[in-house]
């Protein structure tokens, strides 16, 4: 019988240890839910729509705004100083959105870095970049990072459509923050139309 051919595995294993995602938003009297767009097209106004849609779900909530000033920094993780500012000024952070290769990398990195400091997060990623986002979360050691997957494209779409999407996903984003559960909202508006 022929002996099998032995050969060496070219693939390396990620060096980051895998850890459970633990942060949870405990809704208190005046919750502060930070909006953190990566400044990809329409990410900031979409988060404004989302905040408006979440307000009835969280009476007395505030939705402070943070960003990295220029869109060209969307792939670069937030500075420690900016993260410290967000941590001091909020109880949870909603990040938006993964809409291209490098900006998905940035938004996942930011989500992981905040989560490692105990901040509950919800990371919005468009469907087209779902696999990349999941891969990066595993590579960075937090495979259970809460994502809300949304339709692609969202940037450049009609403003009324974006507002309808924000209203539809608001409860899912809140659940991601309070329970650490990811959600698939890719077809959420299709379902609403069908109903």
């Amino acid at each position: 019988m022929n002996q099998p051919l032995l050969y060496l595995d070219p693939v390396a294993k990620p060096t980051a240890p895998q850890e459970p995602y633990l942060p949870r938003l405990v809704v208190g009297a005046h919750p502060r839910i930070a909006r953190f767009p990566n400044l990809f097209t329409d990410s900031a106004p979409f988060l404004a729509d989302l905040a408006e849609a979440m307000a009835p779900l969280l009476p007395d909530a505030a939705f402070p705004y943070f960003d990295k000033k220029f869109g060209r920094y969307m792939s670069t993780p937030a500075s420690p100083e900016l993260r410290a500012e967000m941590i001091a000024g909020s109880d949870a952070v909603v990040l938006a959105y993964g809409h291209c290769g490098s900006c998905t990398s940035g938004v996942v990195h930011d989500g992981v870095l905040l989560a490692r400091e105990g901040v509950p997060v919800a990371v919005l990623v468009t469907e087209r970049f779902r696999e990349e986002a999941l891969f990066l979360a595993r590579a960075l050691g937090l495979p259970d990072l809460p994502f809300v997957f949304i339709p692609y494209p969202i940037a450049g779409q009609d403003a009324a459509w974006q507002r309808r999407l924000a209203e539809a996903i608001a409860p899912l984003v809140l659940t991601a923050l309070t329970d650490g559960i990811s959600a698939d909202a890719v077809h959420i508006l299709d379902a609403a139309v069908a109903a």
Partner: protein
Amino acid sequence: MSALPNGMLSAANEEAAARALLEARCTDGLPIVVPTPERVDRMLLYAPGLPREASLGTLLPMGGDLTVEKAAINAVMAGCTPENFPVVIAACEALADPAFDAGPMQNTTHPVTPLIIVNGPARELCGLSSGVGALGPGPAGNATIGRAIRLIMINVGGGVPGIGDMATLGSPAKFALCLAEAEEASPFEPLHVSLGFAPQDSVVTLLQVEGAHSMMFALTDIGEQAELFCRTLAAGFANPASNNIYTGVGAVAAVLNPIHAKMLARAGWGRARIQQRLFELARADRATLRAISGANTDTIPHAADDVRVVERPEDFLLLVSGDDGGAYSAYFPTWGGGKKGSVPVSRKVRFDDGCEIPESRR
């Protein structure tokens, strides 16, 4: 693939092993050389005094540990000879340097890839070409070293197309982009000397770039050719279809044909003067740019009307390579993304002195 201890895999034969690696998305789509222990051991003989388990760094986005052994495995797969391996090692060290910022480079939808430039004695010692067809096809050392780096980016960095590498169309330059500088044919000091190394050093420099853009410039009399050459080259870099005029940070590169380099030198232009003139010319007015490309100008990270391709003259990396049989140089726009745009990262190529047994004088 049947998993065995110690990173070993098994298959019925070479064909099955190659197919398994292809199906596991461990290749670039082209046939590979199966990395048997014997082939990897031979490659490791040319590791410059480094044990196989030594780490050359962590490669993003996956964060894989880039050991000398993993470099050797992927170099075997790429078809490298052991003589190529010292250059592969140096390129790996540059690739894993945090300053090179490999993570976002791999993730972006832009077709950016590392340009690998080799200077010094390693060009001949490690089998690299700076002559005709230096960027392919043809020169095996250039092709396989470039390919080894791509396979390492896939298998250690996680740059699998559609997962960790989101380039929408990809590029043939992502298979391999490696060349040696034609130092002997150049009237200028070599690139590595301009970057602070000694002439006798062997150096690998990596820069994140698009593939080569051809630049045609027909030579007639000397006259004002140097100025016209720089105008033409600058217009290439400032093309509204490329990223650099919008991002304005990081370096770009030009590979000058020896015949163009000699024309510039005869006209009294050295590297610094060429870089300064390119810096002055590679620009646009914001309004003119907006009339061409509209909202692309919204990504410019400042409000000034004067928009430039790079921040400093020295961000134009210049080297000489290729055959002087035609009037074609090449320029390499870059992605301009990440922390600081494309930053050139250089490493010395090290060679193992091997086992020298002194001769007895007794």
